């Protein structure tokens, strides 16, 4: 690596300032996780003890072991989350890629309002629509299947995915489409052979955000539309650690950390893509 350019060379006090700033920022971001992690290390009986001690006495990783015992289905919940999220992501991409392309490239009557209408979907929260949705799911006959989570999950992830991908696709030079058009390629051929491969970084970003949205945040639909324990996703599964009398906090926290670990690993490897893909500049030839 070459040295940073002069303009990016920091004086010692600037470095201190930056690291201090990052420290403050990350403290805010991570403090709850530290708290959660400490909770996961404490034996249940010592969880509620004052005065506050940062480092737990008798801390142990026991909860990480016992969590598998007290909620035997937990591995299954992680799998379900992965499975549902992957399908949701695939379906969202299949629907959103063409739609985003249409919004990015073609001007036709009603395209503006339609885009706004897509965005408006997010203005109603899923909770409010629960009952009509339930009736709908029932009439489709998908209650108590994976589809009970997939079908509504997809719908509420479509708007932001369209928005993101459209922004990305608008940066692909229009001449690429035109060149293909001149060469006699059909619209569909152009989309498949030209646009899709070039938009791949943008599609990746959308895939990641959709996946996370689905992995971590799908709770209410799973809870209401699915009654089968074996299909429950992670967020619902975590509530299995809530007893009538006691929340098994240490195991709950341990399970949360275990549950998000796969997604964190995915993010870790894709983070570079995420940052650059969000506003990646014009396609370089």
């Amino acid at each position: 690596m070459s040295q940073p350019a002069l303009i990016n060379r920091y004086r010692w006090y600037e470095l201190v300032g930056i690291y201090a700033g990052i420290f403050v920022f990350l403290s805010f971001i991570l403090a709850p996780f530290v708290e959660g992690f400490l909770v996961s290390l404490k034996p249940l009986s010592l969880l509620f003890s004052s005065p506050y001690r940062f480092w737990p006495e008798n801390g142990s990783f026991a909860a990480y072991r016992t969590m598998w015992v007290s909620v035997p289905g937990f591995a299954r919940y992680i799998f379900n989350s992965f499975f549902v999220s992957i399908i949701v992501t695939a379906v969202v991409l299949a629907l959103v890629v063409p739609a985003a392309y249409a919004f990015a490239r073609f001007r036709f009557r009603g395209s503006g309002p339609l885009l706004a209408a897509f965005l408006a979907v997010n203005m109603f929260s899923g909770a409010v629509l629960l009952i009509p949705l339930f009736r709908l799911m029932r009439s489709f006959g998908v209650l108590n299947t994976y589809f009970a989570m997939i079908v509504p999950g997809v719908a509420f992830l479509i708007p932001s995915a369209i928005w993101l991908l459209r922004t990305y696709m608008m940066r692909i030079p229009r001449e690429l489409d035109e060149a293909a058009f001149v060469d006699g390629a059909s619209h569909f051929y152009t989309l498949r052979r030209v646009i899709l491969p070039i938009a791949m970084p943008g599609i990746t970003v959308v895939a990641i955000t959709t996946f996370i949205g689905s992995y971590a945040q799908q709770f209410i639909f799973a809870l209401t539309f699915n009654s089968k324990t074996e299909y429950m996703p992670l967020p619902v599964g975590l509530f299995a650690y809530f007893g009538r009398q006691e929340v098994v906090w240490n195991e709950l926290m341990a399970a949360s950390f275990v549950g998000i670990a796969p997604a964190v690993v995915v993010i870790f490897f894709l983070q570079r893509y995420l940052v650059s893909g969000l506003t990646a500049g014009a396609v370089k030839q």
Partner: protein
Amino acid sequence: MSVRRSTVIFAWILLLPALLYVSVIVAYPLVDTFILSFTDASLKKTTKWVGTVNYDKIFNSTFAEVIVRTFVWTFFSVSIKMIIGTFGAVMLNAAVPGRALFRVLTMPPWIVPMAIGIFMWGWMYNGQFGMISGVLQNMGLVDGPIAFLAHGSTAFWATIITDVWIGVPLVTLYLLASIQAIPQDLYEAAWTDGAGRFYRFRRITLPLLVPAMITMSMLSLIATFNSFDIIWILTQGGPNGDTTTMIIDTYRTAIGSKKYGEGAARAVVICIFLSIFCLLYFRVTHRLASGESR
């Protein structure tokens, strides 16, 4: 003509799957909700058309308070998100060793199931056993425990901060990406003219970030306005209703008290408010974006 028409047809073909999907899964329930808002739907088997009664009920005295509170809550949450997000984006943009790791460390609040994140904050806010109160006590800054969720004012801010925490990663990442899209030569030019780091930030980064901030704050506005889980899990709208926002109130009415008709009317009101907001926002965005292309 034919070329043009085939293009338009193709555009519609591309849109159709997503459009159909969303209309069936979302638009249908939406319309259902809208119709419901004019009925007295509840657990009762029969529903009656009641005209605008549900809407009349909304605008009683306490709901006005809820509306104001919702706006204040949303305003502070979105603004703080933007401020912290901008701060984080700027810090993470600095070319210092370890920044790749720092960027990854920004993301957990986004990845963790929301309820879990909120539980962790619940722990933090706990007066007896929580980190904040504990650390403050250990440092001798306060005498006794402080239960942050117990008092109207602190609970109000506590819920805001949790909402900020959940929203900040995406804002930070988006703004970070936008900062990186600002041409380097602008900074070099400013530096050549003697502008220091902070001056460059204030006069170049910040103004050029405005369009991205507007986009992000609008998306964040919609999410925040509808932010439900955080308040519900932390305070259920209490104490004394000091954290009851429109969505909490709607949920209480619709799901809690099973007054589906009234709840639907409230949902429609929320949507109308948001639409007005977004329209205004689009206006502002448009004005700010014009005349600034390079």
